[in-house]
């Protein structure tokens, strides 16, 4: 849907897009506030005090360094999962297989680690990061290939690949790799050389009182790097340009000489690699082993994170942080108020829906010019396009 080229349009659109940047920040904020208002009503409806509810929620998320560390820790896997969905989305692919990809990535990471008991840290850590990405990436490349080669819709295949991944890793953990004599369905621990350091000591040396037990670890830094990497690939490389072109209009991209099949497969591969990196947090940073069923839906939350973040890497980062706040606060609410756990889920879901809807309303109210700006921003072949291909 390339907009017709009208002389002078490019400059005008760019101006509006510049103005739109403020709205891009303000709109989600307004939406979050509105969501909290509605959430408060829900809490009040069951006779609990909304003020207590939110105070507890935010105390859980922001009371001290420990809480903030937990927010970042909880956000870390969601950043990876969100990037996976957002990245594929840019190629016009709906990757809802993040859950399966992160299981496979985590399992491969654990397995490789268990095969290299004597390896030094400098070797093991990069190898494990690559193994995580490769596991998730190759798992995602299968539906990518099926899409590119046979035109089979990636949604059905990524869902099926989820079932296969969960079932397969469960089987492998329980039947083959379970620690002898133990009931817990988990593998043995990976070598210490493969563990990512927790950030507590680093922050303590800076004078931030993050307790040693806080699970925040170097995987969070990898997540930040991944945000930058996703942005860099999409915006600064030929492949990224091709991915956005294919996502925008595959036929036109093909006509322009882009190898659409190759691009689709690569997009899925990279998307899955981001999902696989969840292993750096779960396996290398936190549990140091593969625990069956550890994820409880991180891959699916990634879809919400990506949509909330408008499929931009930076947006994913902020969306994941919001989810991190909600998840961390929810635990506090669950522990220390009478608001039932189910209601916390309701408030969380209402918040997300309102943020997404509110965002959309604000975007639309910016009028026709703004709509164009929004489109041109999302469109890969836009007025700035030529400058971006290098």
């Amino acid at each position: 849907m390339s907009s017709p080229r009208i002389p002078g349009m490019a400059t005008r659109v760019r101006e509006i897009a510049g103005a739109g940047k403020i709205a891009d920040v303000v709109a989600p904020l307004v939406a979050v506030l509105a969501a909290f208002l509605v959430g408060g009503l829900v809490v009040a409806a069951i006779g609990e005090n909304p003020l207590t509810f939110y105070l507890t929620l935010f105390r859980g998320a922001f009371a001290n360094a420990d809480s903030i560390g937990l927010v970042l820790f909880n956000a870390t896997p969601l950043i990876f999962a969100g990037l996976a969905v957002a990245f594929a989305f840019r190629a016009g692919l709906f990757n809802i297989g993040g859950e399966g990809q992160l299981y496979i990535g985590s399992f491969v990471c654990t397995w490789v680690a268990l095969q290299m008991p004597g390896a030094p840290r400098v070797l093991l850590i990069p190898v494990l990061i690559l193994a995580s990405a490769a596991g998730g990436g190759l798992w995602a490349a299968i539906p990518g290939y099926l899409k590119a080669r046979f035109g089979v819709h990636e949604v059905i295949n990524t869902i099926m690949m989820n079932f296969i991944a969960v079932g397969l890793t469960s089987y492998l953990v329980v039947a083959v790799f379970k620690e002898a004599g133990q009931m817990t369905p988990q593998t043995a621990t990976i070598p210490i050389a493969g563990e990512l350091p927790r950030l507590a000591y680093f922050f303590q040396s800076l004078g931030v009182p993050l307790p040693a037990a806080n699970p925040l670890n170097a995987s969070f830094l990898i997540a930040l790097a991944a945000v930058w990497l996703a942005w860099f690939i999409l915006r600064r490389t030929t492949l990224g340009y091709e991915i956005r072109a294919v996502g925008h209009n595959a036929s036109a991209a093909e006509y322009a000489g882009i190898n659409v099949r190759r691009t689709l497969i690569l997009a899925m591969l990279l998307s899955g690699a981001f999902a696989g990196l969840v292993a750096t947090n779960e396996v290398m940073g936190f549990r140091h082993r593969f625990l069956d069923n550890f994820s409880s839906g991180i891959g699916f939350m990634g879809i919400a994170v990506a949509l909330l973040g408008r499929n931009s890497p930076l947006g994913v980062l902020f969306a994941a942080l919001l989810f991190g706040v909600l998840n961390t606060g929810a635990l506090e609410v669950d522990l220390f108020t009478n608001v039932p756990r189910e209601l916390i889920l309701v408030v969380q879901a209402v918040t997300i829906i309102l943020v997404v809807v509110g965002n959309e309303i604000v975007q639309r109210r910016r009028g026709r010019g703004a709509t164009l700006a929004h489109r041109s921003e999302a469109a890969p072949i836009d007025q700035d396009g030529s400058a971006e291909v290098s």
Partner: protein
Amino acid sequence: MKKLTLFAFLLVLLSLVVTGCRQSTPSQDTGAFKVGMVFDVGGKGDKSFNDSAYRGLLRIADDFEIEHTEFEPGQDADRETGLRKLAQAGFDVIIGVGFLFSDSMRSVAVDYPDARFACVDFDARPNEQLPDNLAGLIFREEEGSFLVGVIAGLKSATGRLGFIGGMDVPLIHRFEAGYIAGARYANPAVSVTVGYAGSTPQAFADPAKGKELALLQYGRGVDVIYHASGNTGIGVIEAARETGNLAIGVDSNQNYMAPGYVLTSMVKRVDNAVYAVILSALENRFEGGVQELGLAEDGVGYAVDDYNSELMTEAMIETVETVRAKIIAGEIDVPRD
């Protein structure tokens, strides 16, 4: 838009005024004895394992001045975080219900030596030394299962028994082994069909799967099924009622769930164990370490009440009581796997 926001804001303000006076948060520093309970997969309301633990907590809260809170972790990492937060909030006793808490308990107990921790169904490592403030509660389920196996063996008309486990793990194998041994003890000719709902924690929370497995076994001539599958077992009992066969409940007394169709229940007195461990902390005589609870300690047993009295004959009960005495005396060797 502005009007709408204002309206919403006023509504919330109004609701604050209406509910504002109500204090809902348990205050954090009343000096009262505080107990926190963290539940397993399936969670509160499973009418089985978790509920049994919860009953123990409610009972002691009735008998003594105790403040208590309980929660069910939403995500895996919340298990440890939740335990930590309870410890930080000054809870005196923190109880993890289910073996999945074993690892988290080990690390949190070391960090908070002033709090007392107890883990039900603790996943002990061989010759493990636990910290002084951590009690690992282990039940000899095979002994109770042996007894209900005897009952099933005596009761079955077809000589075909069934067993449905939740998650396929050594813990549940103990139930299976005891049950089969007990059934053979009562009637050497019985055959036992064994099924498991799955290999993940979800297998304890899948009544549909439980029903499906049970219908399959009843369809093949099985007339008594013993389930050791938590919430999944609700489906097994449902299947017994539908087909007119018998089921045996587990963990809690489940006889009431389908009167006339639940032969008996292998009760695992998680409630007693929870009560006892909290009481020991209240009376300052809490002891860390692995504690095994079997028939002799009244940690396991079988249930007879109004709901199943017509199914259990005097002769059956007499036989079972003899067997029970023999197990306690060590005259019968009950296999664990």
